[in-house]
């Protein structure tokens, strides 16, 4: 008699795989990333490559140590995507070791220590970013005015190598990010109107022509990529929409209460990492809730936390902290927010027909 493996159906599958999902997310990130490369030139490209390369090396080392299949896991795309997200949230001209240390934290501490793909509690890229931000505040908050590739002022490839490896002296206008500036200046007692004077440029934020990390600048390109992911059924709309709605809601309320102190929703949504986080980072399947309702709870929490941290805490860029906090909430959300089972009430008792009618 033929030996049948003890397997239940189904005997056909949708053409989906982890690698395919990861590749599609990367493809969706490509326009915004490429635009970042264009704006910030060779240093950003070199930094990006170092981040990805080192992440892959750390991943392979970890897999070898854990005696897991390198061919199966190293190329599943998850390490590359983590590094990609980390890289585009770094300041464009950060030194090389920021990239390497960041990759090490993301892959080793953020992911592999937990057991590798699918096991981590926190988003690895955000673990690395927060660790870097706390450990190296200077390097992590020194942003650059865009110097588009091929423009006269832009550094050449060799200049860029020197910049990234800290060997040269290249003149460029460094600056804090808009949210950073608002925080510092408000702290010094300046009025918001004064600070925003000449800096309030929503069109620039949306298009990305602004001071930012490598890839979080162009809200427009990120939104396009994010919507493509929603239509490609890689992510769902629940987290991005609930995050942004919650953020807009709370920002608008405080802006109405005191416009001189609280920037409007435009600043919060389009400046900083909000869009990148809402579409690409908060939607990380591993660290976000499983059910649609849970994801909405997660998004609302995220949006509110982003605002709270940006406004009242010590860090002007609150997104990465907010994400880690919500990651920590995810198991709790999953425990209490569950879909209703067919034929049962939310509490699990069978439906009572006579009550209903």
């Amino acid at each position: 008699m033929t030996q049948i493996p003890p397997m239940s159906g189904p005997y056909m599958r949708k053409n989906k795989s982890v690698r395919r999902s990861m590749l599609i997310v990367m493809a969706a990130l490509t326009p915004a990333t490429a635009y970042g490369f264009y704006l910030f030139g060779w240093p950003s490209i070199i930094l990006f490559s170092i981040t990805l390369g080192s992440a892959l090396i750390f991943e392979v080392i970890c897999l070898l140590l854990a005696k897991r299949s390198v061919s199966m896991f190293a190329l599943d795309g998850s390490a590359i995507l983590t590094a990609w997200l980390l890289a585009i949230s770094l300041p464009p001209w950060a030194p090389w070791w920021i990239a390497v240390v960041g990759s090490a934290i993301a892959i080793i501490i953020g992911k592999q220590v937990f057991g590798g793909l699918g096991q981590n509690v926190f988003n690895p890229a955000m673990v690395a970013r927060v660790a870097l931000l706390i450990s190296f505040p200077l390097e992590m908050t020194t942003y650059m005015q865009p110097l588009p590739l091929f423009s006269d002022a832009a550094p050449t490839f060799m200049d860029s190598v020197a910049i990234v490896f800290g060997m040269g002296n290249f003149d460029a206008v460094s600056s804090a990010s808009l949210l950073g500036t608002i925080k510092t200046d408000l702290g010094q007692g300046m009025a918001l109107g004064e600070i925003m004077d000449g800096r309030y440029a929503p069109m620039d934020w949306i298009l990305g022509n602004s001071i930012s990390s490598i890839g979080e600048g162009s809200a427009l390109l990120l939104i396009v990529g994010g919507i493509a992911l929603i239509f490609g059924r890689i992510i769902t709309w629940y987290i991005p929409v609930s995050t942004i709605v919650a953020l807009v809601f709370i920002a608008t309320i405080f802006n109405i209460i005191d416009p001189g102190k609280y920037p409007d929703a435009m600043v919060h949504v389009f400046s900083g990492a909000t869009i990148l986080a809402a579409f690409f980072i908060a939607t990380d399947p591993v660290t976000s809730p499983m059910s649609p309702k849970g994801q909405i709870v997660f998004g609302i929490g995220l949006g509110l936390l982003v605002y709270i941290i940006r406004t009242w805490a010590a860090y002007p860029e609150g997104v990465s902290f907010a994400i880690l906090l919500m990651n920590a909430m995810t198991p709790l959300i999953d425990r209490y927010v569950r879909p209703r089972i067919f034929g049962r009430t939310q509490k699990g008792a069978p439906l009572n027909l006579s009550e209903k009618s």
Partner: protein
Amino acid sequence: MEIFNIHGGAKLDGRKSLTADLDIITMPIPDILHIPLQQHIGAPAEAIVNHGDRILKGQLIATSKGLISAPVHSPTSGTVKRIGDFPAPHPSGLPVLTLTLEPDGLDEWAKLPEPLNIETATSQEIADRVSQSGIVGMGGATFPSAVKLNLGQRYKLEMLVINGAECEPYLTCDDRLMQERTEKTVMGIKVMMKALGVPKALVAIESNKPNAFKAMEKECIHDDNISIVHVPARYPMGSEKHLVQALTGKETPAKGMTADLGVVVHNVATAFAVYEAVYHGRPLISRIVTVSGQVIKKPGNYETLIGTPVSSLINMSGGMTDTPKQLLMGGPMMGQPLPNLDVPVIKGSGGVLALNDTEMKDKNVMPCIGCGSCVMVCPVGLLPLDMASRIEHEDVDGADGIGVRDCVSCGSCNYVCPSHIPLVQYFNYAKGRLKEQDIDRRNQDRMKMLAQNRALRDEKTQLALERKRADREAYNAALAKMQTISNTTKENNNTGHNTTNEMDIK
């Protein structure tokens, strides 16, 4: 008509074009037939013919035992070669009692019961005829149909739903049936309506079968009581409770039946079988089987005698071009892998599939990344990934707590999982374990009860013994006392000193 939304569901790659446009071909009588005596849910039928008997087509060969059971009839005339264990079309390949028949090629009919007069027949008469004809749910569930036609006695029914959804990929047997035997199928539906005592019937057909829809609608154009309805091609639309929800918007309570909502669902092929039984007295001895898959040379729909070995059916379809990666009975979502090619076609077999690697897209299992695709498609509203991770850690009770027993094993979660985790396998395992636990618990309870009863009995015996002993002791004591008295008397008599006693005696 308004179609209501169902939760979840997956859009499958239907792959019905392989056979959708091919006419039903009647399969010739094979050299040998293996007819299992249990082809239905419930108690197995009991053979009433013996080894060596010549039996005729349509003759009753095994009677139903118990309330939920179905009889079995001979698919053709021939000689009983053997009644014994034979591998069932089930992944275990475990043997079931099977009657092996060698056809004589004459195909000689037995004397059949008279057709019922549908105008005068009562509900009970129709249900009895359906029961006697061995008709079971032909969509694969194989629940004895007569039981479901009798529900009108216990429930207030409003509607009959005929399930022509055929949501499993590859299968087109119901599609072809509705196109080629439209009139008879509709006549069967009317008989069923009469048996149930319902004023209307809905025939639900997935939107990927426009020809069947047109044919059925044309047939029912002058009949206001039967409506043909398009339902979206979304798996598992053919699931009874989900189909009823799509058509009525009402949700069947957990552990309940659709009859609680006043709706009874029957498969469209069952309606045809009912027609045959009521109008011609013919029992269920054949069915249409879709033979398909890339490995099959000439896929098609074959009118096949029950008991035909799968190998004969595959030969009829031109054989196979290659060694199949997977042989299945039923559809690719919920079908059963076949242990070998000798197993027979039974009443619930809608399809025989031979699939290759490309069709199955079997890939390495990766860790769960928590994408939630399975949550989105689960038609029951479960969290498949959560249940699977609990079961993986042997926390079967934990999985029970979050509803694994409500899982219908439709496989939608498994179908969409990007990590290719065998979710259904986990759930079936858990359900098996839970059932075992239930049985254990019941046995333990029973043991406990028996032990208690025994203790009680023992106690009673003990008490009785003690009472007996006490009685005896009392008796002995009394006896002893009497003896002492009489002894004393004797002594006194002997000595002559006890005056009192003398006085008493006087």
